[in-house]
């Protein structure tokens, strides 16, 4: 398979990233005599993301956010469903096509203290993606690394330094620079600022926004801080137990959320203008075990509005107002 076959495939108007019923199950051992069971980490998620836009994925730990990131970055192959990058099918693609697609999707991780190899210089870290994908000569790679340092607000003399010589915010700049070295069209950012200090978070968020405006990158932004999501996202997908429960444009999610889980998340988010804590403890209990496959709606055990129907029938995604929501009772109020 060559680049020309790749170019001939995609329809011109395809969104940058389109997932349809994307599913990833893991088989886990429950002990020697008890056989296996299935973790439905990602259970039928659909969304699209356009060039230069930001989709925020929010939800509690174990809801499938990071599993989604592993499918989108092509580290794993989905169990079922479709995933298209610029119109090209990723799931059934040959190893050759996937290798050509991977540089277009890069990742920024949560903890820049763990994601940068302490034994390599910043220059070597930045050039490594180019070496792996056999791009350019040594001189060209070095020039690209220097140019990228300037782009993310670092100085030329940082090229020879090691990660331990940088502060957390600077390290995350290096991680962002490394993700951009291959000129990706999509960057998957998994909690990119939650490990940073408050005064540094703003610097890194501004950098991500500036780079998006300049390079028209799309972000799949995984986060739990809804205040940050509200600042950076164009659209939001709320996940619970491997499924999307509500998705829509940012304004609609923050002002007109329909799903009780989205409302609970919003109510739990601390705010400077917030009421005293004890008055709104948010949803009761904790997320369900990923091994439990309840019938009906996964959220019903914690849901203040659950009715008998919720135990029997899993709600389907339906459009209500400006959002798409999976809840039997979402249409009942204004």
């Amino acid at each position, binding site marked *: 398979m060559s680049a020309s076959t790749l170019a001939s495939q995609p329809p011109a108007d395809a969104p940058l990233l389109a997932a349809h019923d994307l599913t990833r199950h893991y088989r886990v051992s429950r002990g020697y005599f008890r056989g296996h069971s299935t973790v439905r980490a990602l259970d039928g998620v659909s969304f699209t993301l356009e060039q230069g836009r930001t989709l925020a994925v929010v939800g509690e730990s174990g809801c499938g956010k990071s599993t989604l990131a592993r499918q989108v970055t092509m580290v794993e192959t989905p169990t079922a469903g479709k995933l298209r990058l610029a119109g090209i099918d990723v799931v059934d693609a040959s190893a050759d096509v996937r290798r050509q697609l991977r540089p277009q999707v890069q990742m920024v991780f949560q903890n820049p203290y763990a994601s940068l190899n302490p034994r390599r210089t910043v220059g070597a870290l930045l050039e490594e993606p180019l070496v792996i994908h056999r791009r350019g000569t040594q001189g060209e790679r070095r020039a690209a690394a220097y140019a990228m340092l300037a782009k993310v607000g670092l100085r030329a003399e940082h090229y020879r330094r090691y990660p331990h010589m940088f502060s957390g915010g600077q390290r995350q700049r290096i991680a962002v620079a490394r993700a951009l070295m291959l000129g990706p069209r999509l960057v998957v950012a998994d909690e990119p600022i939650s490990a940073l200090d*408050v005064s540094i978070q703003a610097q890194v968020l501004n950098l991500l926004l500036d780079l998006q405006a300049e390079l028209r990158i799309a972000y799949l932004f995984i986060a739990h*801080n809804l205040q940050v999501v509200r600042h950076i996202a164009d659209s939001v997908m709320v996940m619970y137990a491997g499924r999307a429960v509500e998705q829509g444009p940012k304004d609609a999610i923050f002002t007109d959320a329909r799903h009780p889980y989205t409302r609970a998340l919003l109510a739990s988010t601390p705010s400077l203008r917030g009421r005293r*804590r004890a008055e709104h403890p*948010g949803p009761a209990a904790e997320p369900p075990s990923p091994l439990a496959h309840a019938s009906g709606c996964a959220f019903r055990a914690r849901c203040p509005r659950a009715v008998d129907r919720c135990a029997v029938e899993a709600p389907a995604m339906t459009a209500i107002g400006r959002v798409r929501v999976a809840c039997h009772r979402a249409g009942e109020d204004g």
Partner: protein
Amino acid sequence: MKSASLVDIRGLRVEFGPTAHPFPAVDGVDLAIDAGEIVGLVGESGSGKSVTALALMGLVDFPGRVRADRLDFAGRDIRAMNAREQRALAGRGIAMIFQDPLASLDPCYTVGYQLEETIRLHGNAEERSSGAMRRARAVSLLREVEIPDPVARLRAFPHQLSGGMAQRVMIASAIAGRPQLLIADEPTTALDVTVQAQVLALLARLRAEHAMALLLITHDLAVVSETADRVVVMYAGQVMETGAVPDIFEAPLHPYTQALLDALPEHNLDRARLATIPGVVPGAYDRPAGCLLAPRCRYAVGRCHAQRPALEPVGSGRARCHFPLDARGRPTRGWEAERAAAITS
């Protein structure tokens, strides 16, 4: 005077490193906590929040050196206590919970074993002598922190608990000695927002029911604004500002507090870019001679670089600034004149 305070710290200084080139992790901190009060201790990493708490518990060991003009808990000088009294202080007088509950629990022992061990050390005389009493207390403690099915949970190992449940177990263990002060060091940073809300509500309820003071150490200003009665803002080992909630968030006195608030997305709802604080927190040996914030402060003038300000009463709070901010967020005390002079000269 504030001698009635549960905690009364004046001029606390904690140094590490060689005596010739000491590194002051905490540099002249005053901190007072009244009985039953929730105090939020806010600051970026390396600002000295956790070291302040450790010094208060008497847990700063060699080679760390603790000095203070006053270091009192419940009217007694912590430094004057003997080893036995210090052990009783940490557990019965003051208890502490940490950011990562699963790192604080021993993975090899059940929840019940670890909880009963704490009760054996810090419980009342009856509990210390009777195993049945210890077990009953463990169950009631788990019930108190709202853990469902507490009898069954006693047999669980830490890896079988979720993060939120593990933090509840840590809280149960911390209140086992009926402390007068609970220090919570980033207690909810590792938790989901929904579970964070539950744990903060639990802490608020416990302090109300037990008249227990709470020192909440965090970098999350929104958490503090919803939970604390009073806030202490630290920067590079010093207290920059203290004040009551919500005054300190509505009209901060110190430019650092103002800049921290301005950097939050919540304060920038309709703006594309966030306001940032330029530069980084000064490191171990490169703290400026004048005001610690001067190199990063938007209002810094000549005096700020030359002379370190003292922590002084301003209005209802206290601020360490030559030109504390007024209600409109503008510097006062002749700042305009001083800056005009700097520009013309």
